């Protein structure tokens, strides 16, 4: 597969999944809203969860549903957006480095990678993935600095990178610190921080939507710029 074809395929797959996750968010929220509206009007029920021993009735489901929509659902889909952003960024880098592996020519690798590989392509893939794994542990600004070393695309803008850094820092807090902002969040999000250390992070719908739109835009912009640089 040519580099251009690989970039296009990767872009299309990430954009399709971004749309699918947002549809899941919108449809799941819609379902909960219908339940909240119906129950608050006339629904009466009682349900017992044998696993937790908790009983839910029409009295408490509407407010539990609000927790599920505003907290769990928004948080889970937001995390998926960020995972797709990461997958896209490292997928583009992988495409490029596999097409031009000479850039990694001075990297040292364990002999076991070479000895265990079936062919040269497998060795290249292992070397590229090792390099990408090292970059993944750095911050978002470094990811794009690294991308700029590999291929100069002229995007995303500095402002977009700052916003992406805050988005990624928010995701890390949700995954690693039970949603409570900490010093690492403040450092990673810098001037874009939305919360201070000790505060519980929230994902309001406007922020959720803007994050999705930004990631979608960056996927489109970076892909278009990459395709402009890739030989046909």
């Amino acid at each position, binding site marked *: 597969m040519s580099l251009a074809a690989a970039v296009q395929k990767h872009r299309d797959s990430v954009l399709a999944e971004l749309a699918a996750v947002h549809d899941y968010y919108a449809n799941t*929220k819609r379902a909960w*809203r*219908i339940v*909240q509206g119906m129950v608050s009007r006339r629904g009466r029920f009682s349900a017992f969860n044998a696993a937790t021993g908790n009983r839910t009735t029409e009295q408490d489901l509407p*407010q539990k549903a*609000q*927790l599920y929509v505003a907290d769990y659902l928004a948080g889970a889909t937001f995390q998926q957006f960020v995972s797709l952003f990461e997958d896209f960024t490292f997928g583009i880098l992988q495409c490029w480095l596999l097409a031009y592996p000479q850039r990694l020519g001075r990297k040292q690798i364990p002999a076991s990678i070479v000895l265990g590989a079936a062919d040269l392509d497998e060795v290249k893939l292992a070397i590229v993935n090792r390099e990408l794994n090292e970059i993944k542990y750095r911050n978002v600004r470094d990811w794009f600095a690294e991308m700029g070393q590999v291929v100069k695309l002229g995007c995303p803008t500095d402002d977009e990178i700052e916003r992406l850094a805050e988005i990624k820092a928010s995701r890390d807090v949700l995954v690693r610190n039970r949603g409570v902002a900490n010093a690492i969040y403040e450092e990673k999000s810098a001037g874009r921080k939305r919360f201070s250390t000790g505060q519980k992070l929230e994902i309001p719908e406007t922020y959720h939507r803007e994050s999705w739109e930004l990631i979608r835009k960056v996927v489109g912009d970076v892909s278009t710029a990459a395709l402009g640089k890739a030989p046909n």
Partner: protein
Amino acid sequence: MIDRSTNASLHVIGDQAAPGLIMAPASQLDAIRRILDEHHIYYWVDEEYISFDGEPDVAFINFSRDVDPKRVQKLLDEAA
């Protein structure tokens, strides 16, 4: 404040464990916004309204976890 579609008081759902929510006729959204804005209460409104059983559209007004639902309820009651 009275819900014009049911003639019952508007109710703020929520407690310490769950963030607050108001389900209100979309036609009353501007009036509710004015109260919330006047008291600097942070909220956001769902992009989508829903109509139940052919009745007028319902808007969903969400509150930050930091907003006390009881405070909002008091403001709505006082606006009645």
